[in-house]
């Protein structure tokens, strides 16, 4: 019942939208009724048209994200615990973080071609910034007590990173990954819209060119669901991996 009250306003909007489109106050090819969009969404799933672009977008986003984690976490930890790395990299990453990396699409196409590689590389570049910065802040703010106690037992440098610094920084690494997940899907879709090469972004642009608003909507819903579920999966993994962590109450 409470859910019903919460969803009431949405239901009202959907109902109004449906009515306006059905009665014919607006052109249903420009502003299709909700039921049409849902029907199209189901159709593209049932006849399998959506799977190829869905998979393209998903693997590009995940590959770029994984590469950014693989490079960004060690780099962020290094920056948090060594002077020279902090001196060199911290200003570069905090300078670059708010800049629109999307503007590099033409350069990346020139370097890495029109297809997946340029997109994965751009997703990697864009995701690297939040992951490095969050990891760095986590590793820098560690309580030195843990480090002293490990050092006093003669823990080596490498082992220290692996067994002490990394686990203690995990909470903020995860904050960075949560941000990067959203970025990955966004950059995947935008780069597909701009330079083609398959994927849900290209599907949307093609649907737009053919005036097929229903398919454009179906693609939009799919993109949003990917973003939402990747975010929830990241949250869920965080809960599992970090249940022991002090900051996780």
């Amino acid at each position, binding site marked *: 019942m409470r859910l019903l009250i919460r969803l009431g*306003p949405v239901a009202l909007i959907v109902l109004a939208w449906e009515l306006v489109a059905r009665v014919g106050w607006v052109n249903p090819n420009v502003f299709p009724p909700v039921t049409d969009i849902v029907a199209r969404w189901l159709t593209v799933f049932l006849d399998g048209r959506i799977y190829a672009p869905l998979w393209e977008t998903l693997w590009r986003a995940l590959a770029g994200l994984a590469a950014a984690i693989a490079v960004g976490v060690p780099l962020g930890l290094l920056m948090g615990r060594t002077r020279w790395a902090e*001196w060199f*990299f911290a200003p570069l990453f905090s300078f670059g973080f708010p800049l629109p990396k999307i503007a590099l699409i*033409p*350069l990346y196409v020139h370097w890495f071609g029109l297809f997946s590689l340029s997109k994965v590389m751009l997703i990697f570049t864009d995701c690297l910034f939040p992951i490095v910065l969050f990891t760095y802040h986590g590793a820098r703010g560690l309580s030195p007590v843990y480090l002293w106690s490990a050092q006093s037992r003669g823990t080596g440098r490498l082992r220290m990173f692996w067994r002490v610094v990394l686990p203690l920084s995990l909470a903020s690494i995860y904050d960075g990954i949560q941000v990067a997940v959203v970025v990955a*899907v966004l950059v995947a*879709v935008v780069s597909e819209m*701009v330079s083609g090469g398959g994927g849900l972004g290209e599907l949307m*642009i093609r649907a737009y060119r053919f005036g097929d608003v229903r398919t454009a909507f179906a693609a939009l819903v799919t993109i949003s669901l990917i973003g939402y579920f990747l975010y929830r999966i990241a949250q869920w993994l965080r809960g599992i991996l970090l249940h022991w962590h002090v900051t996780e109450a």
Partner: protein
Amino acid sequence: MKMLPLALLVGAWQAAASAGLLPASVLPSFWEVAASLGGMLRSGEILPHTAASFGRAGAGFALGVAGGVVLGLLMARVRAVERAIEPILLLIYPVPKPALIPLFMVWLGIGDFSKIAVIALACLVPVVIAAYNGARSVDDMLIWSARARGTAQGRLLWRVVLPSALPQIAAGVRTAIAVAIIVLVSSEFISAETGLGYLIFSYGGVGADDAMLAVVIYLAVLGYALDRAYLAGLRRLMSWHAFAH
């Protein structure tokens, strides 16, 4: 001193290009890029594109921030508004906003309106959430004491809730600046005949890498300057607020 690593990086870029390690077909030298930017500034070629981009981003940003502050404050103080807006916000939140560009182009055409509308929506979301959270955490004592003096609801929002929520709103607005530029560039890549995104895209398309990079760097510097200017302005405006000390 903080810019030294950046200068080193640029120096290494130029050195590699001068030494012939970096062919111009891969990356033109920093010097060529700088010269190209200088030429565009001197000839004034880049200025109308700058104006077009900032007109779009500025209009969308202003609409998004104004709407976001009003909605966020109302949501925090008026139950019915909260009930109505919160579920809609939850629906819009996970949508990557640039993905709305094709749909808005169908509804509002490929001109400025669709770009401004998507930028406004993209800026609205972080500001609504910031204003809502900020206004909800207002100290109840302030509200009670204002009420006790018979302050009306509208005046309460304007004189008590808004000022207390300002630090959080300010953070949301800072996010909105970055978001506006991202959506602007995306929309100009997809369809435009003016603007910095268009300029980057068309120079990239004809293989004029030095000019393309010149505009990318110009955009980055402008974005950075905007962020700095915003922070500096904020520090002045908010000097009365506890968070500034």
